[in-house]
């Protein structure tokens, strides 16, 4: 009799769990319902209703760093977040955001073959990943692998990119999407911070880089979409609100001729948000 009762209870629990899972999917569908696109093969404006899952595919910090390659810029440590600030980060939000920030710094160091600095940042990221309980993705063997391949920049960037993706996947598998989203947000703001500050006052001389920076406005829309999915989490909400303000600044840059004054105001807003993340 007890077994029968237990089976019933387990059945009800599973049923409830399944419903909850389905609700999440339905919510995802609804999030983009107002937009209109054609679905696959069929002329329809109900693609979002048909899509089972909607993903926001955000670039890893490596991709943002890659955009700076060939733009003629030089390595400048001044724009990186010092590893010594690690002790300031005690909450999950600060740790997650700065795991992303340090990830972007690490990618930037690797791009310019600043190998020792890169290893140093990887050690910091390993420490944060332990604090956040992200198991197995960042360990001593990974650091050894990086050291062994330090002379092959592409290999290093490839290892880093896989590491970011694996950490992200681990968090998602363990239902810690909020932390994953915050890491992505941290990486994105640091990439934007580095690229916009590197331009300095020479807007005309760095026209390609200015274009890269303005292009980040599109990525911000994807990022806001991702964060919106977890907006019920207070940490995500705080970050979302800050980044949403930057969207307004990006919209102001959507002109044919960005003036130095406009760009400087934009950079100061970026710096303000980034510095609030890095404390």
């Amino acid at each position, binding site marked *: 009799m007890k077994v029968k009762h237990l089976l019933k209870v387990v059945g009800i629990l*599973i049923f409830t769990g399944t419903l909850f899972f389905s609700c999440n999917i339905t919510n995802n569908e609804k999030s983009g319902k107002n937009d209109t696109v054609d679905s696959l093969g069929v002329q329809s404006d109900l693609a979002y209703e048909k*899509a089972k899952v*909607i*993903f926001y*595919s955000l670039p890893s910090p*490596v991709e943002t760093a890659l955009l700076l390659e060939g733009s003629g810029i030089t390595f400048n440590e001044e724009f990186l977040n010092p590893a010594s600030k690690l002790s300031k980060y005690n909450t999950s939000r600060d740790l997650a955001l700065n795991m992303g920030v340090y990830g972007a710094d690490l990618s930037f160091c690797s791009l310019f073959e600043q190998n020792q600095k890169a290893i140093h940042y990887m050690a910091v990221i390993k420490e944060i990943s332990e604090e956040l309980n992200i198991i197995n993705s960042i360990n001593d063997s990974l650091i050894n692998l990086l050291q062994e391949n330090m002379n092959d920049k592409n290999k290093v960037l490839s290892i880093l990119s896989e590491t970011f993706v694996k950490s992200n996947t681990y968090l998602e598998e363990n239902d810690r999407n909020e932390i994953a989203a915050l890491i992505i947000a941290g990486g994105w703001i640091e990439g934007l911070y580095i690229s916009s500050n590197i331009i300095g006052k020479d807007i005309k001389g760095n026209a390609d880089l200015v274009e890269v920076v303005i292009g980040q406005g599109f990525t911000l*829309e994807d990022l806001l979409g991702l964060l919106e999915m977890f907006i019920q989490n207070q940490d995500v909400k705080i970050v979302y609100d800050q980044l949403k303000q930057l969207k307004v600044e990006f919209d102001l840059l959507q002109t044919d001729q960005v003036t130095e004054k406009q760009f400087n105001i934009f950079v100061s807003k970026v710096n303000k948000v980034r510095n609030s993340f890095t404390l």
Partner: protein
Amino acid sequence: MKKYLLLFVFMIFGFLPLTVNAQCKEFTENEALPLLGDFILSGRYNAVKLYEGEEILVFKTLSKGITYRFIVKGSSDLPKNIEFEVRDWNGNPIFLNKDKNYTSVWDYNCDKTQRIKVFVKVPVVSKSKEPQSGCITLVTGIKKI
């Protein structure tokens, strides 16, 4: 007894969503990542279990000066001809793999920064009441042009 058998079946299927991620992650690592070649993995694995007739939608921003490799793979329990289509933000088609013999790999040299939408759809082929299901994965790789 029949009631408990049904309950047991329900339990098994009820747990399925919880195990999907790990299953599809392994599938992605074994079947999709090797197709990256010299491209660097970008973003995340977009891997999920789908049934026939279902589709996923991925929002992505492409950056000027980067070559992107899109890899779409479906597990062996799904129909072979997985459809994927890339459209710009206004809905204009950029690529449809149906036109390329349902290729699972597509490289794109991006000449302007833009937001895109990627649709991946599992076609309906089985005539039985039980639709086939399996893992679908979309992986993106990047390379400087």
